[in-house]
């Protein structure tokens, strides 16, 4: 699942990941993501942007951890700010701009390619 408010970046991520064989679902902000997660099959991995309107990445992560069903889903943060800013509990932090190789290597650690 991609949670990213910039539509261009989200589409680019979706395109490269789909080409690699992953199934992608996309939400443009944390609130939409929570709604989708509650209705759908759980993803293997969430790629999370931090700076988003309405509900930031930090807020989303807190809400996710409070929800027993969603808490276990690993989160890789794709963000502009590094560890210098407010810390977040995530499996991995990847700094933008992320190269294609780094992105694919990171996703491969957590997600399965669908047949």
């Amino acid at each position, binding site marked *: 699942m991609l949670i990213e*408010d*910039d*539509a*261009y*970046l989200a589409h*680019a*991520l979706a*395109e*490269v990941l789909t*080409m690699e064989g992953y199934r992608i679902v996309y939400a*443009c*902000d944390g609130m939409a993501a929570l709604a989708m997660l509650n209705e759908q099959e759980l993803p293997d991995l969430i790629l999370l942007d931090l*700076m988003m*309107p309405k509900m930031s990445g930090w807020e989303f992560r807190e809400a996710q951890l409070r929800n027993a069903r969603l808490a276990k889903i690993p989160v890789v943060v*794709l963000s*502009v*700010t590094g560890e210098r800013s407010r810390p977040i509990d995530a499996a991995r932090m990847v700094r*933008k*701009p*992320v*190269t*294609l*190789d780094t*992105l694919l290597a990171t996703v491969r650690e957590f997600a399965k390619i669908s047949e």
Partner: protein
Amino acid sequence: MVESMNEGAVSLALDGTILYCNSAFATMIDQPLDQVMGHKLSDFVAKGEVAGLADLIARSRTQANRAEMSLVSAARELPTQISLNPVKMDDDSDVIGVIVTYLSERRSREQAQEAVRMREEFLSIASHELRTPLSTLVLHLGLGERLLARSDIPRLEKTLRKAKDQADRMTELINRLLDVTRIASGKLELELQPHDLGEIVVEIVDHLAEAANKAGCEVRLNIEEGIVMQCDRMRPQQAFVNVVSNALKYAPGSPISITLERRGSEAALLVDDRGIGIESDDLARIFNRFERASSATQSGLGLGLYITREIVTQHGGTIRAERRRGGGSRFSIILPLSVRPRPA
């Protein structure tokens, strides 16, 4: 009388030479009196301010001025406020009378901290907003490499085009950032010439035709001809583009109507859409730096309307956003046709 003041008092020749100063001033700069008189005032100010002082002294030959200036005192910098006045002496000579007072240390520290905070906020927002399209660009280039390896040329073409779009996006963001810096330091300069506003509007609509198409917005023009404004061409163009492309971004699928009309000695540009409208609380806020309406989902520096407002007010005009009855927004830009530009 001057000797009993706590403030520093200095009498300057028109070239900046100190003809006279009181002991309070000498104390301020921690110098014996005989080491001050006959020297230039610029010898006692911080290095970086020497040029500014020269300019200030030149202007003070004919009018009063006031400024903050850092003096050097015992190898430390002393923030002061100086006020300069042209004075005609009894013997008919012209001098500049300068009064020097301590600038409250706390105030200047607070100002410095505030300036640093604003700059950091600005840089962090700028960094964020530039890294995102850069990420997209990097991904497209990575994808391009793989497509080339597979010889998937049609898809490679598309990807390269998208990469170029992101580069263009970044260029625009950077230009806006530079505009904001220039506005902040008061350097947004204007070169005034007569321009036909109607032509500018038509050009903008042409330029945005493809974007309007993609956004599903039908653009209706209602332009009164022959409205000529004394202005710097780039600026009303920039202001109008910002407002129109805003409408396309935030009111997709809605018809957009652009009206240009003459109102006495002013021109009015009205951009109406039938989009989701702007909350009453946001109507004034959206013109501030880095603000976006709470209903906005698009990324972008949130500078477009701020820059637009700065351009408009520098030309002596006004800009306003309103909710429309029946839904949607109206942005009104009013500009005087012959401009008395206001200093930034």
